[in-house]
């Protein structure tokens, strides 16, 4: 007779359940004689709906269940499996001060309600201006004839003599102010859905400019993001500090990849890969190419977990990402690093160089990891390669102003 647990993490996510690709859990058999029954890296759902549970087959006995959340929080519970029974176990995640904080709390970019409420009383800070740049200048789109334009444009916006603040129309034809969908004294939330219906091979590009009296940040917008044939919203949370500095973070409300991105953002690469591989989600991303930005996240995961010299079936996925989506710099960067991880640089120098130069021409990578790998890749080409050095100097100037702890590229101006 079968037995086990029905597992989930209970957390309200503004009406969105993550029924399949949720969070990582370990289930330890507590009887030493049954330790072989332990199950590690089980993917369990997150949500509140009555049917949002995952059935995990286990032999009767006592177990400790441990869920490792993308935020780094750990929720554990001890429970008994009885013969022939399927016990429901709902691990209770911490709640947030506002419902609209819930996705960002899952990723670790905003604290739970108890910690939030324990904060010393602070003066409310008014909302900052957030401009969505709907049609960026050709340089920022990366499709200008002058391939170094984006890098020169951004590098020139820093340093002495640059007039601040920079008006949004300096970056595009139509800077449009975007109002927060929710805010409180410390945070403001913006939601973006682009309603793009064109081919994914020709996706346009968007940026957001956040302006405060102290700073301006130019953020790559991870849109359009498609999941199950529809565009899902990308949410930007701006967290305001009393010294007028800000922190920004993105969440994609994607039931398949939302938590994958959260683990990726926090450097929990193995957990991210485990979830992305669950239900063949990763393979589907590359097979269907409905969501190139999601496929790029998958590419970073595969490469970051790759052992040197490893041969695998997925390598051609990276080549395809580079070939089919010429608006996406990240595919080229990943191809270069695939070669760098497969063997010595001298075995593939020409291919690596070409791919990195192509990435440079396509513009600012969507992912911060891409910016880091572009700097590192150009560095590896060496000081004797004058063309590489020329590009490296520009990319490095931009990377100095990037917030490297953000998942998506974000440049302080």
């Amino acid at each position, binding site marked *: 007779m079968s037995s086990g647990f029905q597992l989930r993490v209970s957390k309200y996510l503004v009406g969105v359940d993550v029924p399949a690709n949720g969070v990582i859990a370990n289930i330890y058999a507590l009887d030493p004689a049954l330790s072989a029954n332990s199950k590690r890296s089980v993917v369990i759902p997150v949500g509140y709906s009555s049917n949002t549970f995952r059935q995990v087959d286990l032999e009767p006995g006592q177990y400790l269940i441990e869920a490792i959340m993308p935020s780094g*929080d*750990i929720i554990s519970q001890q429970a008994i499996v009885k013969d022939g029974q399927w016990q429901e176990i709902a691990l209770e995640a911490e709640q947030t001060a506002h419902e609209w904080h819930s996705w960002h709390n899952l990723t670790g970019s905003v*604290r739970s309600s108890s*910690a939030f409420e324990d904060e010393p009383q602070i003066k409310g800070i008014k909302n900052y201006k957030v401009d969505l740049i709907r049609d960026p200048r050709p340089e920022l789109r990366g499709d200008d004839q002058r391939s170094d334009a984006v890098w020169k444009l951004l590098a020139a916006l820093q340093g002495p003599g640059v007039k601040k603040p920079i008006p949004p129309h300096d970056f595009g034809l139509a800077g449009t102010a975007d109002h927060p969908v929710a805010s409180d004294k410390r945070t403001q939330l913006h939601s973006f859905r682009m309603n793009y219906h064109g081919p994914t091979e020709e996706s346009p590009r968007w940026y957001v400019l956040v302006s405060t009296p102290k700073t301006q940040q130019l953020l790559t917008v991870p849109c359009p993001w498609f999941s199950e044939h529809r565009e899902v919203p990308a949410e930007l949370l701006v*967290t305001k500090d009393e010294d007028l500095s800000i922190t920004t973070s993105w969440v994609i409300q994607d039931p398949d990849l939302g938590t994958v991105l959260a683990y990726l953002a926090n450097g929990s690469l193995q957990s991210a890969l485990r979830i992305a591989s669950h239900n063949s989600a990763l393979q589907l991303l590359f097979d269907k190419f409905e969501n190139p930005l999601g496929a790029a996240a998958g590419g970073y995961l595969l490469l970051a977990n790759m*052992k040197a010299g490893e041969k695998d079936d997925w390598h051609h996925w990276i080549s395809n990402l580079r070939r089919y989506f010429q608006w996406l710099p990240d595919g080229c960067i990943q191809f270069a690093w695939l070669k760098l*991880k*497969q063997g010595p640089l001298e075995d593939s120098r020409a291919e690596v160089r070409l791919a990195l130069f192509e990435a440079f021409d396509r513009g600012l990578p969507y992912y911060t*990891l891409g910016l880091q790998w572009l700097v590192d890749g150009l560095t590896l080409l060496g000081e004797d390669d004058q063309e590489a050095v020329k590009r490296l100097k520009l990319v490095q100037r931009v990377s100095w102003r990037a917030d490297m702890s953000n998942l998506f590229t974000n440049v302080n101006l």
Partner: protein
Amino acid sequence: MSLGSDMSLLMSEYGDNDLAPLEQALDFRKFRLAMSRNAPNQQLYFIDACRSSSDRLIDSLQYAGRLPVQNGPQASAETPIYFATLAGEEAFGKKNEVSFFTNAILMGLNGMGSDDPAGEWLVTTTRLKEAIDYEVKRAFGGAKPKQVPPTDTLTTFEIHRLRNDPEVPVIVTCAPASENARAEFICERNGVEQSRRPPANETWSITLSAGSYDFRAQFSGGIVRQPKSNSINIRPIYRKVIIDI
């Protein structure tokens, strides 16, 4: 000193030469990159330092310090890196104690970052990261939502085998927590008392070897409360014991 993707590790002699201060610094980004093209093929980096932003790296025209190693002929090595803090921020500790980060590493290696998939307690890179993430966050008391930065590569490999059972941090609390002020906590193993804490207006933090324990909260008037499970199993990464009142 940190600026975007670049980082300069300042040596103790840093600043001795006013004309060339970065001569007493290590260009860490290039160092790690060059090391990754050399043996061994598994390397591990722990950076327990503040990561102040400084325009000195811009002023120095991309010179971020010395580079004592050159690119070798290897394919990329696995080079997980653990930082004490985010770029541009300070790392913290208590006066006359090791930093929060070093403490988290030591706790991780001492068992908090271990698992026993085949019966033997092993610390792996991935499990160590989970332990450090948890412990640094706990040490900061949740003062910031995010304290430990992501790493750009984190392949999983074994870094330590424990000779003894792992030491695991445990937090014991009443629910509601306000009852902690009236509760005396007692921890026993196989009927032998291991530790006891008199009433105090906070949770009880102890470190225990992995295994099964019994906990109870005693109140004046002989009232005793226990957790829902009779015997609580303690194993890494940490365990919270809740006693409902």
